[in-house]
C-alpha cells in the first residue's frame, strides 16, 4: 500500500469506531427501557401487523437495478478517458480521443433507445 493511503485507513477506522463506541457507551448511560411488549412490535399506524414485511414488491425495481449496473460501469469507463483526454489532445490525437468515446457511447445509445421504446424506463 502506498504510504499516502495510511492516514486514510486510520481515518476510516476512527470514523467506524466513533458510532460504535458511542452506541456501546450510551447503552450503559441512558435510562432503562420501560413499557410492555407492544413497544417491540413493528409500527403499523396502530394496527396489529398481519404479515411479515418481506413480501413481494414491484419487479420494476429489479430492472432499475440492472440498468444502474450498466450505466454505472459506463461511468467508470468514462473516468479514465476523461483523465487522459487532455493528454491525447496535446499529442494531436483529438480524432482518436473523440471517436473512441463516440463508438462506446453510440453502442450504449442504441441500447438506451431500445429500452426507451420498450418502456423499461417508465415506472408508472
Amino acid at each position, binding site marked *: 500500500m*502506498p504510504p*499516502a*493511503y495510511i*492516514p*486514510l485507513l*486510520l*481515518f476510516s477506522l*476512527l*470514523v*467506524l469506531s*466513533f*458510532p*460504535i463506541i*458511542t*452506541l456501546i457507551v*450510551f447503552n450503559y*448511560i*441512558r435510562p432503562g*427501557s*420501560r413499557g410492555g*411488549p407492544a413497544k417491540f*412490535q*413493528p*409500527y*403499523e399506524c396502530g394496527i396489529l*401487523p398481519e404479515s*411479515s*414485511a*418481506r413480501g413481494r*414488491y414491484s419487479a420494476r*425495481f429489479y430492472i*432499475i*437495478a440492472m*440498468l*444502474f449496473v450498466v*450505466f*454505472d460501469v*459506463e*461511468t467508470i469507463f*468514462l*473516468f479514465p478517458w*476523461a*483523465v487522459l*483526454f*487532455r493528454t491525447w*489532445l*496535446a499529442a494531436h490525437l*483529438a*480524432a482518436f*480521443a*473523440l471517436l473512441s*468515446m*463516440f463508438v462506446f*457511447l453510440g453502442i450504449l445509445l442504441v441500447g*438506451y433507445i431500445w429500452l*426507451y421504446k420498450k418502456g423499461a*424506463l*417508465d*415506472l*408508472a
Partner: protein
Amino acid sequence: MNAVLQGVLAFVQTWWVELLCAVLIVLVVPLIAGYIVLVELKVMADMQARLGPMRVGPHGLLQPIADAVKLLIKEDLIPDNADQFIFWFAPVLSMTAALTSMGAIAFGPWFQVARDINIGLLFVVGVSALGPFGIVLGGWASNNHYSIIGAIRSTAQLISYETTAGFALVSGFLLAGTLKVSDIVQAQYAGHVWYVFLTPVGFFTYLIASIAETNRAPFDLPEAESELVAGYMTEYSGFRWSLYFLAEYANMIVVGAVGTTLFLGGWLRPFPHVAWLGWVDALPALLLAAVGVYCVMRAGKQPARVQAMFMWVVALLCIVVALIFGLVEVAHASNFAALQASHSFLLLRSMYPGLYGAFWFLLKVSAYIYIFMWLRFTLPRFRFDQLMRLGWHILIPLSLVNVISVGVGLALESSLGWNRWPAMILTSIATLFVGMLLIRWNDKHAAAASASIAADNSQVEDSYAG
C-alpha cells in the same frame, strides 16, 4: 517496547497534519451537522415568517446541543421481529460511508486527510456509494412495511441519480484532466476560470443529482411522511436514528464539497488573479472581528446572565483569533525583521493561507447547502414516477450529451485553434438545445402515458358499471 514507541512517534511526526485533520473531522462534523439543522430551522422559519427555535441559548444557538443530549439518552428500541445485527449495523455503515468519503476532500490548501492520493474524487464517489447499503439494509432489517418500501424506493432513487452525478463529474474531469483534488483546484487557478462557467449544464445536472442523492426535498420520497411515516427510518429511534440523520447531513457536506471543488473553484477566492482585490485576503479576520464586536454589543441586552456570559465567551474567542491573524498580517506588511525571523511568527504566517482557503471553501459549501434549503422550502415533493422519469428520461441523456459536448469543445479549442470561450459557449448552447428537445419529447410521452392510463381506468369503471 521502546522500539514500538519510537515507531509510533516517528509515524506521528510524519503524519501529524493528516492525523489532526482526521480527529478534527470526526469531532467537528457531527457538531457542524447539528448547526446546519439549526440554520435550516432558522431559514425555514424566516421563509414562513416565524422565529424558529429561540429558547435554548441566545436565538436558539444551543438548540443542536440540547437535541444531541436528548437523542443520546433517548430510549433505544429494537423491534422483536427485526434482524438484530443488521439493524444495529446499518446506521453505523451509513454514517461511516458518509464520513469516510470526507477523507479525500480538501478543506483548503492543506486541510486534508489524504493529501497525496491521485484518485481523490474517485475515492469520494466510490465510498459514498456505500451509503445506499446502509439504507437498504436498515429498511430490510426493520421488518416493517413502511421501512422496506422506503428503503427500496430510496435505493432506486439513489442509484438512478448516481449515474447522472457520475456523468456530470466526468464533464468536470474532462476540463481538469485529473482526479486529484488539489490538482483540480490548481487547474482552475491556472485556467483563470471556475468550471461552472465552462460547463454550466454539468454543474446544474450535478446540483440536481446531488439533491436527489442526499434524499432532500423535492426528492425526499424515501421519507415522505404523508405516505411512508419515516421511510427506512420508521423503526429507528434515539441515537440510531440520529446516526442516519448525521449521515444525511454529512452527505450534504460531501456533495457540496465535491461540487465546490470541481465546479466552483475549491478554496480559491473570487478573481484570484486580480491584484487590486488583494484586500479580500483580510476578509476572514475582519468578519471574525465583526462577529466579536457584535457579540459584545448584544451581551449587555441578554435577559439571563448565562446568555450574557455565553456571548462574552464567543466575543472573546472571535476577537482573539482575529487579532492574532490581523497582527500577523500587519507584521508581515511592516518589514520588522526581528519578528519575521521568529519561529512562531513563521508558523502562524504559514497557517494563514490554510485557514483562509478553508474560509472560502466552507463559504462556498455553505452557499451550496443554502440552495438545498431554499429548494426544500420552495418546491413541492415529486411523485415517484415523476422522479424516475426526470432521472432516466432527461438527466441521464442530458448529462451524457454534456460530456460529449465538453469533449467536442475541448477538441475544437486544441485542434482547430478556436478560442476557449466561443467553443465552450457554443457547445453549452447545443447541450441546452438537446435538453429542451428531451423535455419536449418527454412531455409528449408523459401525456400519452397518462392518457392511456385514463383510458384504462375508464374501461375498468365501465366494466364495473356494466
